């Protein structure tokens, strides 16, 4: 891969934005902190210097207002990219997003379009607590007219963000903060990764595992370990929960008979609920065993790490669930699982990366 570089997702998102801004003068960035020295965890670094204050617009703390501003500009053909440092802050902007961004194309009978992108980052770790770590994927997935994309790898994140900015419809991109640290090979230059549904990231015939965002990274770790015990997982990235196109998942379950869904957000009423329901409707007869969902438990995120030991699904809980689904005897998985457990225990559970020293 001569023309790729190793970079993390944050850098890939930065590069995507840079390329879009260079190519299309209508693209501009809005958000609290986009023009400050921290540059949204580095994802807007250097853009102010390159494109100036008129295209890298620092925002007052007024999420509903500036979302409306972005929509108004988008209606005139500009291509705003909004960035929120936490998904939580976007709760204030839902009226504009749900009513005006999502519905205007439809209500105008196709005459208007709202080429808006909203990046929102899910917080996790270092005691951020209940109002800075919400993962509200399902809330956005619920709204027709929005698109929703959850990036995981650096290569795809770059292409998905470019595709989102090119898209004539409003695209919500929910990035998990810990995904920002994930490193991978990223091609040079301008390319898109289409926003057209789930994609298979690992092929296997024993159990279908559907995950997104940070949980996909955990699922892939789990799949490696499962493979050591002879279990081949078919791992699917539900990268674009809206428009919702479950076909790949349904087809996979037709082969494996087993379905495990992992939500980055709440287990109840999550993306997994819709996936399981869709599979039950379309491929009930193929289900050899009851599907299983993992996700956040039914309470807010406490700040103290002492209460988080079982809060987030991990590669280990995924292994356990998948092994049981695939009828793997405990003895067969115990060894590789233990090795992974030791490996994982080396890093504190509330930081994303060995270099991280807090706070976010």
């Amino acid at each position, binding site marked *: 891969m001569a023309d790729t570089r190793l970079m993390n997702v944050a850098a890939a998102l930065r590069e995507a934005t840079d390329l879009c801004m260079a190519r299309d003068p209508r693209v501009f960035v809005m958000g609290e902190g986009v023009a400050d020295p921290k540059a949204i965890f580095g994802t807007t670094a250097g853009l102010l210097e390159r494109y100036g204050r008129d295209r890298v617009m620092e925002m*007052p703390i007024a999420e509903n207002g500036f979302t409306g501003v972005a929509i108004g500009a988008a209606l005139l053909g500009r291509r705003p990219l909004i960035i929120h440092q936490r998904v939580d802050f976007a709760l204030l902007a839902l*009226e504009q997003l749900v009513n005006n961004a999502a519905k205007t194309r439809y209500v105008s009978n*196709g005459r208007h379009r709202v080429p808006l992108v909203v990046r929102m980052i899910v917080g996790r770790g270092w005691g951020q607590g209940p109002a800075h770590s919400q993962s509200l994927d399902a809330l956005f997935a619920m709204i027709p007219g929005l698109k929703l994309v959850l990036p995981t790898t650096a290569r795809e994140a770059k292409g998905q963000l470019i595709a989102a900015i090119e898209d004539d419809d409003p695209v919500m991109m929910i990035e998990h903060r810990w995904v920002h640290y994930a490193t991978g090979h990223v091609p040079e230059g301008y390319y898109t990764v289409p926003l057209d549904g789930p994609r298979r990231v690992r092929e296997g015939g024993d159990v279908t595992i559907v995950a997104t965002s940070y949980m996909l990274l955990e699922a892939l770790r789990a799949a490696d370990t499962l493979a050591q015990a002879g279990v081949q997982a078919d791992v699917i990235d539900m990268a674009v929960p809206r428009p919702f196109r479950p076909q790949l998942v349904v087809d996979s379950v037709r082969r494996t008979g087993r379905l495990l869904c992992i939500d980055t957000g709440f287990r109840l009423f999550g993306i997994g609920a819709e996936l399981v329901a869709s599979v039950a409707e379309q491929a009930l007869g193929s289900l050899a065993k009851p599907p299983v969902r993992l996700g956040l438990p039914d309470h807010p995120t406490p700040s103290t790490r002492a209460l988080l030991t079982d809060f987030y699904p991990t590669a280990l809980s995924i292994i356990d669930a998948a092994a049981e689904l695939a009828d793997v005897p405990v003895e067969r998985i115990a060894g590789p699982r233990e090795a992974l457990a030791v490996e994982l225990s080396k890093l504190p559970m509330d930081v994303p990366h060995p270099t991280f020293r807090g706070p976010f």
Partner: protein
Amino acid sequence: MTRTTTSGGAATVGDNSPLGLYRSMLRIRLIEEAIAERYAEQEMRCPVHLSIGQEAVAVGVCAELRRTDKVVSTHRCHAHYLAKGGDLKAMMAEIYGKAAGCCGGRGGSMHLFDDDVGMLLSLPIVASCMPIAVGAALALRQEGTDGVAATFFGDGSIEEGVFHESMNFAALHRLPVLFVLENNLYSCYTGLADRQPDRPLADLAKAHAMAAETADGNDLEAVRAATARAVARGRAGEGPTLLVFDTYRWREHCGPNYDNDIGYRTEAEFQGWKAGCPVERTAAALRAAGLLDEALEAALRRELGAEVAEAFDFARNAPFPAADSVKDHVYG
């Protein structure tokens, strides 16, 4: 943003002669009255928020705008749509739920859009229109034009926080926005005193170092003059203006009837405002200037009446959208 062009030439929305503007007001009045009259037929099956009594603000403001300037309105958008040059037949077809409606019947009376004439959006959620107008103004500036964006809203809308968020943004960036506050004293059936502390509404602008103009909203020329100053500031890059116009809604908040009997306002108050009818005041001024007489008035009413009747006929006879089009245009 290297150059500033005068977008779309300096073409005004319509005929800005005294008679032209009177005609525009009278036309709105006649259309609204026709809606009120025919509403009981149960064929306009959507909410209607009539503008009767508030025509001078719509016409006075839009007289100072160009076709290419943008307007964003609210649930009470009929007059703004018409004053900005929106297509009458498309409006009536929209209210009748027909395919030829300006939104193909999908929006109903609270969603009158006609972007060909700069009527960008109307939005039924209170105050939702305001930041949209600010964004339109931002885009106009980004495009390098000297266009302005105006947003109309009522005295209830200024209670929403997004009003201030929008003013702060527009003031900070000196954007060419006209915040047009149509103060008709009520939010649905609740008077101002039950919703806001007592102070001049123009003081709202002080919070954001914004220019403000207050004028009699039933006085066409006063509305025009205040608006002209605001537009000039906007085009010159001097920033936004809050325009406060006092006026009065004659009919019920939503629907075709009078409702002075239900207890939230007095018949006397209504009669006072009715006596200052903006359409009649404009007519009187024209008559005083010798520009209007009975014959001309009758001719005008005949001509407009025919146009209105034709629009209703068109809308009533127009086909409904095809049922299978319902899923179109969710995404592109």
